[in-house]
C-alpha cells in the first residue's frame, strides 16, 4: 500500500440517495482497490477464482467486489505463499475489491469435530487426522492480513440458527470479545477493514444487544450474521429489520449468505448494502439459469428445441450468442456450459443490483419493488413474509 493511504481511511462510505419510503439506500463504498456501488452483490470465489471465469470476464460483468474463503485459502495455498506474492489480489490477478470471511463458519460447517472454546475454534486437521488445529481470532486475522482483502471479517462464534437457550447468548457475547481480539491483532488497519458480525440468533433482545455492543467499536462497516441458515423467512426478515434499525446510517451493512433475487430486493428495502451467496454460481453448475420469473433448468427436455436465448433482454455474452437448445445439449456435460451459465447468472445478479441502485436514485424504489414482485409472482400469490417485510418499510404489494 502506498503512503498516501495513511491519510485516507481504507473505507469511506458516501450515501448518494436514500429511499423516502423504505429504508433502502444507495451509495459508494470506496475501498483501497475499488469504489464499489452499493447495494452490491458479491459473487463468491472460494479458492481464489470465480468458477472458471477470467478476471477480465468478471470486470466486463461489472463485478466490483468478490469473496474469497479464508479457510480454503489458509490451507491451500496457505498464508506463506500469500505473503510471498503480496496477497490474493496479485495471486489471482484481480484488480478490484476483495472480501474474505473469517474461516470460522466454514470450519463449523465443513468439519464435524469442531469444538468452540473461549480460545477459538478447535478442529481436526483435514490433512493429518491425528492432530488438532486451533483457529483463534488472532490466527484468523493473521491469515486474512496475508490474503490482503479490502474487507476482512472478524472471527465470530457461530451457532446454528435453530439453537435456543444460553448458548445463543454466550455466542453473542463471545463474538464481541473476539472482535476486540481481532481488532488488536490486526496488522494492516490502513489498508484492510475489519467488519464485526452481529449475532444473537433469532432472539430480538440478544440481537439488539449484539448490534449495540459492536457499534461501540471503532469499525467502518458491519455484517449481519447467523441468518440464512434454516430459520423461517418470517424470523429472518425481522432479524434483518431489527439489525439495520440499530446499525449506524453512515456505515455499510453486509448481510451474509443471502443471494436469491427476492431476498435481495426485500433486504435492500430493509437497508442492507452488501450481499454474498454461492447460489448463482453453484446453480450454474447444475444447468440452471436465473431469469426474472425464477429459473430455467436447462437440463429439462423442453429446451431441446428452444432456440431462444436464456433471456431476450439480457445483454450478457451468453445470451447474445447461445440458445437454450445448445445450452441444453451441453449442460452438465461440458465445462463450457458451466462457464456460460455462470456468466449469465452473474450478469443477472449485477443487473438486478444496478436496477435497485438506479431506482433508489430516481426515488422510484417502491415502484421497482412492486414491479419486480409482480413479474416474479404473476398470480400475485406473494409469500406472506415478503408482504409483511415490505409493509414494515411502507411498501405495499397490490
Amino acid at each position, binding site marked *: 500500500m502506498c503512503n498516501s493511504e495513511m491519510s485516507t481511511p481504507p473505507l469511506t462510505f458516501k450515501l448518494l440517495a436514500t429511499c423516502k419510503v423504505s429504508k433502502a439506500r444507495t451509495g459508494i463504498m470506496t475501498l483501497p482497490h475499488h469504489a464499489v456501488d452499493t447495494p452490491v452483490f458479491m459473487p463468491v470465489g472460494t479458492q481464489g477464482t470465480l*468458477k472458471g471465469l*477470467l478476471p477480465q470476464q468478471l470486470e466486463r460483468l461489472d463485478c466490483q467486489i468478490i469473496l474469497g474463503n479464508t479457510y480454503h485459502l489458509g490451507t491451500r495455498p496457505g498464508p506463506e505463499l500469500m505473503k510471498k506474492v503480496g496477497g490474493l489480489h496479485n495471486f489471482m490477478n484481480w484488480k478490484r475489491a476483495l472480501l474474505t470471511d473469517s474461516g470460522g463458519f466454514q470450519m463449523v460447517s465443513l468439519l464435524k469435530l469442531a469444538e468452540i472454546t473461549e480460545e477459538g475454534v478447535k478442529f481436526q486437521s483435514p490433512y493429518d487426522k491425528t492432530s488438532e488445529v486451533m483457529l483463534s481470532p488472532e490466527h484468523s486475522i493473521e491469515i486474512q492480513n496475508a490474503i490482503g482483502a479490502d474487507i476482512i471479517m472478524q472471527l465470530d462464534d457461530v451457532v446454528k440458527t435453530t439453537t435456543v437457550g444460553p448458548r445463543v447468548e454466550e455466542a453473542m457475547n463471545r463474538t464481541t470479545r473476539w472482535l476486540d481480539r481481532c481488532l488488536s491483532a490486526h496488522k494492516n488497519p490502513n489498508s484492510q477493514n475489519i467488519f464485526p458480525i452481529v449475532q444473537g440468533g433469532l432472539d430480538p433482545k440478544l440481537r439488539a444487544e449484539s448490534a449495540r455492543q459492536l457499534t461501540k467499536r471503532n469499525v467502518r462497516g458491519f455484517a449481519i450474521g447467523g441468518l440464512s441458515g434454516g430459520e423461517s423467512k418470517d424470523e429472518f426478515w425481522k432479524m434483518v429489520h431489527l439489525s439495520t434499525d440499530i446499525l449506524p446510517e453512515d456505515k455499510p451493512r453486509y448481510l451474509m449468505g443471502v443471494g436469491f433475487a427476492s431476498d435481495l430486493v426485500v433486504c435492500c428495502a430493509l437497508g442492507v448494502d452488501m450481499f454474498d451467496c454461492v447460489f448463482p454460481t453453484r446453480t450454474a453448475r447444475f444447468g440452471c439459469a436465473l431469469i426474472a420469473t425464477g429459473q430455467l433448468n436447462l437440463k429439462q427436455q423442453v429446451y431441446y428445441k428452444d432456440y431462444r436465448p436464456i433471456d431476450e433482454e439480457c445483454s450478457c455474452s451468453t445470451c447474445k450468442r447461445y440458445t437454450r437448445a445448445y445450452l441444453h445439449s451441453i449442460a452438465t456435460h*461440458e465445462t463450457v456450459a458451466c462457464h456460460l451459465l455462470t456468466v449469465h447468472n452473474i450478469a443477472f445478479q449485477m443487473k438486478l443490483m444496478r436496477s435497485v441502485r438506479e431506482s433508489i436514485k430516481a426515488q422510484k424504489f417502491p415502484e421497482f419493488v412492486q414491479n419486480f414482485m409482480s413479474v416474479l409472482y404473476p398470480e400475485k400469490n406473494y409469500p406472506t413474509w415478503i408482504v409483511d417485510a415490505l409493509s414494515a418499510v411502507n411498501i405495499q404489494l397490490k
Partner: protein
Amino acid sequence: MKFVLCSASKCSRRLGKIIDIQRLPDLAFETPLFFLHSKGGAIPHITHEVLQMISGKPISIQVPVASTLHSEDAVRDFKKGLAEFIGLAENLIYCTVQDSAAGVASGFNDKSKVSVFTRKGRRELDAERYMNVMEAFCPDMYQVLHDGDTDANSGKKRVTKAVDRTSRFTEVCLQRHKSSEVLQNKAILGVIEGGHNISARETSAKEMRDHPFAGFVIDGLCKQGPETENIQTSDIKEIIEKTLAFLPTDKFRIIHGCWNPEVILDLVDMGIDMFDGSYPFIVTERGAALTFCNQIDSYTDCHSLNTPSKETEEENISECSIYEIDLNNKMYFDDLQPVSKTCSCLTCKEHTRAYIHHLLSAKELLGTVLLMIHNIHHYMEFFQTIRRAIKDDIWEDFHKKFKQNLKK
C-alpha cells in the same frame, strides 16, 4: 471450397490455402493447418468470449459426430446448421465421424454400419443415416463414413474389410452428397483406409482418387486417442509415403490424431497439409502446459525454455515429456514465473505457474481454462512457425534443429 497449392517446390512439404468456402467466402486458411478440437460442439473449457481472447480471427474447428449426435434433431429443426447452433458461425466447421482425442473403440463396426460412442452410449450409423446427420449439420467440410478400426497390428483380412466397407459407404455418401441441395456445395473428403498394408492402401487410394473430393483423410493408421502421441515417425513413414504416392498432389491431405510435435513436423515434411487439435487438448486434460520451442527465431536456444526454473531433489524431471511441463508438480507451488516467458498468450501475460498449480490442486475449473488458452495459443504459433519456415525456405534447417534440440 478450393485448395490452392502455393509452393511450387519439388520437395514433398507443401504450403497451401483453402479458399472459396461457400458459407465464408471472404476467408482463407493457410496450410499446414490444424483444426481445433471440439466436444459437444464446444472448444473444451473455452467459451466464445474467451476464444476471442485467444484468436481474434476465425479459426478452423473439427466437430466429431460422436460427441454431437445427440443434437441431431435439434440442429435439423433449427435449420441454420451446426456452425450457428454451437455458436461458432464465423469459423470453418469440419465434421468427422470419430473423436480423435477419445479414440476408436475396436470391434464394433460391421459391413453396413460404423459405431460411434456418444455420451448416451454406442450408436450405429449406416451411410444413409450418417448422411441424414450431415444434411442436418451442414458443415463446411466433412468426411465420408468410413471404417477406420485398424492399426499397425491389423491383419490383411481386417484391413481389406476396412477398405471394402469404406468404399461402399463412399458410394452412398457421394450419391447423397451430389443430390443434396444443402451439401453439394460443401467439401466432402475421401477417406483412405488400409491399415499398414501397402496393397490395401493402394486399392483404397485408387478407388478414391478419381472422385470429386476436396481432399483426402489418411485414416486407419492407429486407433487414435491419447496413445497416438507415443507413435514414432518410423512406425508410419513408409506406409504414409507410399499412400501419398497414389494420391493426386492437388488435393489436400489430412491425418488425425494427437501426434507429438516431432511427428507433426515429419508428417508436414512428407506432405501432409492438415491435422487436428487433439494434442493441445489432451495435454491440457493432464494438467500440463506446452513449452517446446515453437519459434523459428529462438530454436537455437530452445533448451532453456524447457528447463524447469527450479529443480528439487525429490522431483524426477525425466518424468516430464520433453514438450511440456506438468503444472500438477509440487515444484511449481511458489513459482511466480509465467508458464513461458516468451509466450504472449493471456495466461502467460497475466498469470503464474503457482496460480495454475493452485487451481489444479484445488480442482478449480479456471486451471484448465488457463492451460487450454496457453496450449491452443502455443499450438497455433507452432503451426504459424511451420508455415513461415516453409515460406521463408528455411524448412530443412528448422526441421533439423528442432530434432537436434529434442535430443539435448
